[in-house]
């Protein structure tokens, strides 16, 4: 980034989370030409004084990093505790209205302060747009996703109540309601984190899977984290869902691309194994860190839109949104988090100059 002044679009959430400005600060330090789309969420319920104050502080911090005229507010109605799930559809519509990405060298989606359903929808919508732009011989714009990871900050931000219905990421329904394939076996991969018991039950009731393959974080910074996640959901997994220990998958907490590989490969195995039954329906619920959620999303995206996908397989991504946030239990002074950046598409996929590899065609 420092080699030349790049035009960067930063897509960021307007929120209370202590991690909201970390990416903006880093970009500011690199002297990038930054424009911001600030996603402003509205669930129609208003915010508590504490959350309002934290959100306002974060916004003031952003104004110190980026001139006000380069910040575009992008309102998104995300709906209240009951009623139709509108978040994915509204997120896409808002991003469509916000503008064009083609004028930028890099689009960076900082999902640290975004509700998960907004984050997953935003990344998949922008990825699809930029892929199509490049396929149509337009510019190949880089897409990056950043997130400031902290288990304690996630838990501190997650206080609140859940919606009463299951929502699917836009474009990833898994054909759950399709009548002609109602008899196909359903396999569900819940990617587990802390405090997900209620979400698990809601999604399980909705999807009604024949087989469950929980994904546990391992390796992790805190080496017992995987065991603690299993212990916390023990009765749900082993007593209620009757999960076979052999069905448990492991996904590196550090590396979402390895989580991608685990989940993508497991899905591929089920697709092949269940072909004699006509087919199968696959579902993934990203209930762990946001970093792993992006790995999960990419696995689903590549099954449907990836260059290696022959059958455009629609994996469902069911999730239960937070309806009402409680006041966060985070401390900006002591928050211990690590900024991760994932380069999803763009220049890394492009060829290198033919002269660079002396014998590039000798054996190919």
């Amino acid at each position: 980034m420092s080699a030349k002044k790049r035009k960067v679009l930063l897509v960021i959430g307007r929120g209370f989370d202590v991690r909201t400005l970390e990416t903006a600060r880093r970009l500011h330090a690199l002297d990038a030409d930054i424009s911001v789309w600030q996603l402003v969420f509205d669930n129609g319920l208003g915010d508590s004084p504490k959350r309002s104050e934290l959100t306002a502080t974060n916004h003031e911090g952003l104004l110190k990093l980026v001139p006000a005229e380069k910040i575009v507010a992008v309102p998104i109605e995300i709906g209240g505790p009951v009623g139709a799930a509108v978040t994915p559809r509204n997120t896409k519509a808002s991003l469509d209205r916000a503008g064009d990405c083609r004028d930028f060298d890099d689009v960076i989606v900082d999902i640290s302060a975004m509700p998960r359903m907004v984050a997953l929808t935003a990344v998949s919508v922008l990825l699809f747009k930029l892929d199509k732009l490049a396929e149509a011989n337009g510019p190949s714009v880089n897409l990056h996703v950043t997130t400031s990871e902290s288990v304690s900050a996630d838990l501190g931000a997650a206080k609140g109540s859940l919606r009463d219905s299951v929502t699917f990421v836009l474009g990833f329904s898994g054909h759950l309601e399709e009548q002609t394939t109602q008899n196909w076996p359903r396999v569900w991969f819940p990617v587990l984190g802390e405090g997900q018991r209620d979400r698990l039950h809601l999604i399980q009731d909705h999807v009604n899977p024949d087989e469950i393959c929980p994904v546990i974080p391992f390796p992790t910074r805190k080496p017992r984290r995987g065991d603690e996640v299993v212990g916390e959901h023990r009765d749900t997994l082993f007593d209620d869902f009757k999960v076979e220990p052999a069905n448990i998958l492991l996904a590196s907490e550090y590396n979402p691309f390895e989580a991608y590989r685990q989940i993508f490969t497991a899905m591929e195995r089920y697709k092949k194994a269940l072909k004699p039954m006509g087919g199968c329906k696959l579902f993934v619920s990203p209930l762990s860190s946001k970093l792993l959620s992006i790995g999960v999303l990419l696995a689903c995206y590549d099954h449907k839109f990836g260059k290696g996908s022959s059958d455009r397989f629609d994996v469902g991504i069911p999730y239960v949104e937070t309806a009402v946030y409680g006041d966060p239990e985070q401390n900006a002074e002591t928050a211990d988090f690590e900024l991760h950046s994932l380069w999803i598409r763009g220049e890394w996929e492009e060829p290198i100059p033919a002269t660079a590899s002396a014998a590039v065609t000798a054996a190919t």
Partner: protein
Amino acid sequence: MRKDLAESLLAKIMEWSDEEKAAERAYLESFASYKYDEYQQFSPGKRFIESLALWLGQFTGGEERREAYNFVRKRLLFISTDEMNHLVELTFPTIIRPILIADTATELGVDPHKVKAIVDTVEYRTRLRQTLVLGLSDGARTDWFRRANPQEMSNEQVFHAYDVSDPKSEGMVQDLRKHLTKILGREPHDHEARFRYIVLLDDFTGSGTSFIREDGQGGWTGKIAKIVSGLMKAGNLGDAIANSGVKIIIILYVAGDQAIEHIESRLPKLTFGKGTVEFEVVHKLGETTPLDDASDSPILGLVADDRYFDDDADDEHSKVGGTSKRYGFANCRLPLVLAHNTPNNSIYLLWAEDDQSVRGLFPRVSRHRKLQ
């Protein structure tokens, strides 16, 4: 012992109410089935819950047993076979491949981020084939490493041991030459048909002393020092590697901070005339894993109690670690169990051997058997 009998015994030893018994029994059964029963050194027919009942029974009833049980529930760190295999699977894509890509990018003078194109170059494929992977012990699981990377590596460049016979070494070089001919589209030069990356794999170290340590005479000993010395000599693997620009990459699947610090502080002082030595860990246990004097004082109180230590555990190998094995070899204080054996860097109470006066929860089979 039958499972229900073992559970009744456990409930009696712990003096659990019916409510406590129901809750704890469900938890223990789940984790026994999920992980703990796979411990490979349990004697035939013996399983975790029975071992736990007998282990807790050696402590004085009441507070001591509750603290010991609490340690098992809150601090025990058991790395299962599946978890270890997962770490093996992560080794190539997260450590080896990025090194090869970065070196190839430097050679070609291109942006190292262009990974998709770089891995298609002859230069990358040449470096990949010039990589020799060797196991430092049985725990290296080179069989699993090989199966996890079938598209990336040839069988002939992965070997389970670092002590390679002369014919094997010569065979590896012949295979390397044959494959390079295909990759390059020509016969490789002699200097090309030599390994440039030596990857040394092992499963675990708690202290790092068996890998490298001062020999007391101004030199070095331990596995790494011996291998580096061997690679500098003529013949065998010394002839199979290039004369310069060689990277030795030591990769441990699991390591404690104490070991990482020990190895990293010594490696720069170790001379390797043909190149460099790097050290990587797939899963670092971190600073919170060793038992802490303050927060873990109840279990450390039992560890310190002479009733729960057999002096027989301290042998000549303890001297290398510099302390008694009561708190684990080299005072590592780990609460760690590996599915195939408990490391002696863990507290003695976890791994006390079957022929000793104290009962271990996951009894260890020692590498250093005493002569009878």
